[in-house]
């Protein structure tokens, strides 16, 4: 029997509005790593060894070319890695039992917004202060935009990753598109 074909929340959406570029990112796998009580140090050492990355903080993500680590909750890390079929299995090879793993790849839609006026557009929906001195490169925040829970990460001066629930991806896209239209 044919293997099931996959469909991303925005089906590979990409668009420019005025000086703003929007595109869906869907070439990743996302696994949540829950750290067993009182083993944070041990966990930190493992990701240092395995990913060569320091522990992310709840306001700063850590990243190299292929991996990005976010601390989404005091005892919870999101690891965003290149797309694999069964990421839980994949990661357990390196991390083993140091964390409880839950595949979250399909739970999120990831939208990249870039362009000279991206911040001006985000002003209309994002209540977090995105001033480059307050929200530096790789800074991250879990907040809300238009009643939708959102994770925002700065990946460049004018580039941000926006992560929101996959089931409401179309509403989320509408909110971001409209902000871009209103300021263009």
């Amino acid at each position: 029997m044919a293997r099931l074909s996959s469909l991303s929340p925005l089906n590979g959406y990409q668009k420019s509005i005025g000086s703003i570029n929007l595109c869906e990112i869907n070439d990743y796998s996302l696994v949540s790593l829950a750290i067993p009580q009182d083993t944070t140090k041990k966990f930190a050492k493992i990701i240092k060894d395995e990913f060569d990355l320091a522990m992310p903080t709840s306001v700063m993500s850590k990243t190299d070319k292929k991996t990005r680590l976010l601390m989404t909750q005091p005892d919870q890390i999101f690891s965003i890695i290149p797309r694999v079929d069964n990421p839980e299995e994949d990661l357990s090879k390196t991390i083993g039992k140091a964390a409880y793993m839950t595949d979250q790849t399909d739970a999120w839609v990831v939208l990249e917004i870039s362009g000279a006026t991206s911040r001006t557009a985000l002003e209309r929906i994002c209540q977090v202060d995105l001033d480059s001195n307050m929200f530096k490169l790789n800074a991250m925040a879990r907040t809300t935009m238009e009643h939708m829970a959102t994770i925002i990460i700065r990946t460049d001066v004018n580039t941000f990753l926006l992560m929101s629930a996959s089931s409401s991806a179309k509403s989320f896209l509408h909110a971001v598109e409209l902000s871009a239209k209103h300021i263009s």
Partner: protein
Amino acid sequence: MSQLFRINGGLTDRSKPINFTFNNKQMVGYEGDTLASALLANGQRLVGRSFKYHRPRGIFSAGSEEPNALVQLRTGAHQEPNTRATVTELFDGLTATSQNHRGSLGFDFMSVTDLLSPFLSAGFYYKTFMWPKAFWEKIYEPIIRSSAGLGSLSMLEDPDKYDKGFLHCDLLIAGSGPSGLTAALAAGHAGLRVIIADEDYVLGGRLLEEDHNIDGISGQDWVLQTLAELTEMSNVRILPRTTIYGAYDHGIYGALERKTDHLADSGDKPRQVLWRIYSKRAMICGGATERSIAFANNDRPGIMLAGAVRAYATRYGVATGNKVAIFTNNDSGWQTALELVAKGVNVVAIIDPRDTAPRTHISGVAMIMGASVCNTSGRKALSRIALSNGQTLNVDCLAVSGGWSPNVHLTCHQRGRPVWNDTIAGFVPGGDLPVGQFVAGAANGDMTLGAALKSGHKTATLIAKDLGFTTNSSKVAKADDENFAIKQFWHVTGHKQRAWIDLQNDVTTKDITQSQAEGFRSVEHLKRYTTLGMATDQGKTSNVLGLAVMAEATGKTIPETGTTIFRPPYSPVAIGAFGGRERGQHFHPTRLTPSHKWAKEQGAEFVEVGNWMRAQWFPKSNDKTWRDSVDREVKKTRTSVGVCDVSTLGKIDIKGRDAAEFLNKIYSNPFAKVPVGRVRYGLMLREDGICYDDGTTARLAEDHFVMTTTTANAVLVYRNMEFARQCLFPDLDVHLISTTDQWAQFAIAGPNSRAVLSKIIDKVDMSNDGFPFMACSNITVCDGTPGRLFRISFSGELAYEVAVPVRYGDALIREIIKAGKEFDITPYGTEALGVMRIEKGHVTGAELNGQVTAFNVNMNNMISIKKDSIGSVLSRREMMIADDQIRLVGVKTVELSDSLASGAHFVAKGEKPTTKNDQGWIASVCYSPHFEQHIGLGFLERGHERHGEIIRAWDGVRGTDILVEIVSAHMYDPEGGLQRG
């Protein structure tokens, strides 16, 4: 009408004429005009009618404090009532009409109320309209309502767009007058992130309206120079047309920016943007508002605030009259006289109750000291004034200055109380300012230009230091301090006429004295009884005056009498702006199921369930009604097989060493010993013992459970479990994460469900022993796609739920349909789901509505007494387990042809439907294709022991009253053989 009253000078662009109409009269103004300045330039005196007496009224002020000149702007769906002509930027094609009159503005039938005024004094309506009783609703009130109110809404949907936004700054400056600008300079130079906002479309505040010198150049040039400097600074954001309307907790300010109101067309961009500004510090530099003096008939068109007369001449190049007199109790009135004369306006006299004049003479102006204006005449426009010294003067404009009230509004928004200052005869900010807020300039009582410039700079510098910025001593702009001496002279007495205090609400000095006589002496009583300060201007020009007159009447001082504090907003804000950008499709986010695209292809009807769009039923061409579709889906599922997208159910991954122990505390029934590979139905209580949520939870590994919650409660259950995890059992090693959006989950139900699934699932022993009822397992489907399989049943049939990552959901539903073809598989929606669960007697939100106990739904045996779980203790309170409590029952109509409706109440045969005879109600109903009649679930007193009884289902609001038989809630396959088989 040509612009007869235009004079030289001002900031309007004479090279850019603008056409507009007022009451359909074609007029011309210039770019830079407000509607008010253009109307005055065209000699339009009468612009509106007052609220109560429908008195003829003209333009009174030159700012947002305007009580009189309210017009209906634009037409059709864009019609905008109560728009202040004094702050409306003129644009080409602007149309405005006057409001609150029957018949023409010139002849208003309602002005009869003016003649009846003796009988319409303060609070008259509380004392009459009571007889005969029936007349109030039918006659009196409709009359009062239609004569009250000002402008009208179009009653059409607001066609404009709105938006919101969020700004952050170190220092927010409200107001761009002298103090605001020097503050912005100082803070900007120090490197603070500054936002300076002004409600006006040109920055500069009073410097635009008065002639001053700053640092040796004209005030207006200084403004331009300063703005140029500020524009250069990347850390300063200038927001014209932006009103700071409110001060909220912790440095948050509300601001309204008018984006396209000054344009003929919004060009599909937001009309206004509502900003939420997060500030570390804020400076209120809002200046001061002039007030009037109460004297007989002081409300006629042509009687204006002196500062406004000056503003129209200086900023707009408009003379407000051919013969102007000035009535002032303070020096600013004299400044007005000087500037008007300098601009060639004919000022005939200046009248001042003080004995000695502040200057020796002003050429051509009679200086009448120790006198006051005691009456005026001219019905639709001022023609003559009478003075206390017996003199009368023919004038068409009277400029009045009763002194200036600092604009303390934003300092009061957190209930702060201003304090009285005798020298300036006004209230200044008290000590209890909102945290982080400062006040400078006239708003703080620094009434002179020199002082304002200084205080702006000084305050901003202090703030910068306080925030840890180094302040390079930027130079302070310098200017002379003009005189501002004032005599506290509030109203002219010794007459029987009405002297207005609140122009819009027609509150006169008589109303105040009467209110005093009737015992309404506290300021709040005064306001409420007379409606003083309750109009659209919120008493900006009248509150202090009213207070002063009340103080006199009670023989107290003004501070003894009280202060008036202000509520947000500073000036009224369109409801549309507060509403923001979304009101239709995107009012709330929409959640789509993994099979949504496929279901749309099938022509499914959708229904909103907690933001999810769920397929309700799948119509087929030969279905005549929705019932045909639902019946078909139910029958097909019960006789062969059906499939339903159940991805909307909340799914929570629960992991950790202590996961089982944790669940044992969350669920009221035992969970500690659920074997791996098994599913258990769980009942969740609130701590107060009321049923809260239910669902199945599967154990996939020793330290891994997957919980399902109802669609509606998913978020709340998760929140409560986090509470238990973090606050009640902080040391348990248990971790939660929602996987609702991760998994596409389909229920496959019916005798043939096993056969269909076997074709899709990779190598699992599907036999009843291999995978029995309530089994669960990690699996792969369609050749290796990871998934999960649960053998659970909501329908009561042999049934499974299969889950794959959401991105495969669309493909999987198509595979399932393909695999089910040979069994004529049917997709079913929420309606069929509902029918089958009612037949089976499963409860949902319709029954578990937050009011019922486990006892009520006959599940109290599920509350383990061997352990301490959430809600168990309080679930055992006496009245929650009393014998006479309501119990869940099934109902069937006695007549097969009868139909049932939810919400009907149970009443015994032969009894009246009264509260006393109310025995319960029906919670859910459906037509059951299986029983071929209407059935339902309901709650009935002692219901568990009344099966077989016949009782009435009384539905008064729908006008039905039918007989039903009480049966067990488990109507379909009560032994449950089918789902286990």
